[in-house]
């Protein structure tokens, strides 16, 4: 199965051109001494604490563990360079997630990867998908791999990162109605892929679900 991974277009360009996105420097670990050792250690500890969730997010975004690791590492270097724009530690996670999304988009820009073979990705990441030692979870992870990025990303932000609909909308540059529609379609498609009983699931929905969800 071939699908577009990150199509070229205004959305990706907007992602790359947002203000506050810093260009990478050379090896910061070797050169940097601004902020002193204490600031660096503190920042490093914060990144280390957030790293598991950042890796999970990057993995579900890219469906490639090695690429996810590269993206997260590059993200932390960029974040260190731009650390003055971080207002408080509690805002660190959403700030880093935004940088991950941009870095992921840049990766595709550099490598000009237009398409990915989902079956190949599933085969390559099989050890990761099956790591739960639970057949149910392994099937669900495989189904998540097959979900188009436009549905997978808001779902991961909601379920894994605990983002509200409004926060997802702000991060992805969408209306809340569009986010709700994508979340609805994501779960509906996942349930089909997992062989769930969908006889009571409603039919597909109009583009804007916000009226139903405001009820």
């Amino acid at each position, binding site marked *: 199965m071939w699908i577009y991974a990150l199509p070229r277009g205004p959305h990706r360009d907007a992602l790359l051109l947002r203000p506050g996105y810093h260009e990478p420097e050379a090896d910061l670990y070797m050169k940097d001494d601004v902020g002193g050792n204490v600031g660096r250690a503190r920042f490093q500890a914060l*990144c280390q*604490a957030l790293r*598991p*969730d950042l890796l999970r997010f990057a993995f579900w975004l890219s469906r490639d563990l090695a690429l996810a690791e590269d993206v997260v590492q590059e993200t932390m270097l960029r974040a260190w360079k731009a650390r003055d724009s971080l207002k408080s530690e509690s805002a660190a996670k959403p700030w880093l997630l935004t940088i991950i999304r941009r870095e992921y988009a840049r990766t595709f820009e550099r490598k000009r990867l237009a398409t990915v073979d989902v079956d190949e990705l599933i085969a390559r990441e099989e050890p990761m998908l099956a790591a739960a030692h639970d057949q149910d979870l392994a099937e*669900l992870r495989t189904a998540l791999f097959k979900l188009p990025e436009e549905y997978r990303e808001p779902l991961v932000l909601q379920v894994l990162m605990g983002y509200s609909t409004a926060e997802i909308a702000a991060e992805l540059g969408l209306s809340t109605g569009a986010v709700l529609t994508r979340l609805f379609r994501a779960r509906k498609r996942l*349930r089909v892929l997992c062989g769930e009983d969908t006889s009571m699931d409603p039919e597909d929905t109009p583009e804007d679900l916000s009226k139903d969800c405001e*009820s």
Partner: protein
Amino acid sequence: MIECAQYRRAMLADPHAEGPALSEHLAHCPECPGYRERLLRFEGRLTRALRIDAQVLPQSTQVLRKRVPRNERVRRNGWLAMAASLVVALLIGTLWLGAPHSSLAADVVAHMAGEPDAWARTDVAVPAADLAPVLAEAHMRLRPDAGMVSYAQSCLFRGHRVPHLVVQTDMGPVTVMVLVHETVATPRMFDEGGYRGTIVPVPGHGSIAVLIKGEQGDLAQVESVAARVKDAIVWTG
């Protein structure tokens, strides 16, 4: 009242959504409560599927080091492997004893899932007669300035009995696990599985893990509580 299709569309978009119209429909519809229950079970599986175990994820000790591009790593790896195997053979013993265990934080977080009732916000303290034996197992006492202890259990953790305490603070209940058998070289903060915390070394007495539920506060606040609790411990053995 909204229709079943509207209710189910809202649930599929967000199974935890709430609102008067949704509640009213749920109260009166014969079928949607069962539908919601099945959807929430699916949501639980989805959450577990997305939350890949931290132990499976690649570890890194230097998060601010520039990574070598992957194709270059492949070229270098052949030469590096030979040299590295010699170095590793010499260092592995000492590193194993001195380094913090990579999955300690994950184990602490996993332990929380087994005792959800411990997180209650309360002003009822554990009686001193119940608290003392839990602390005595770790050869310690706790001065009152640690804060009010609302929960105290002696828990099995990595093959040892350890005190599992909950201290009530301004930001709500904070869990403290006294890990006299687990050594860490430096403080290690973590933020995973919905919990934020830190594991701090206690020279000669292992370490203590201090954590909160994610939404309660930030890591700086946790560190402050950890320092206070650590200072309030009196070691008796």
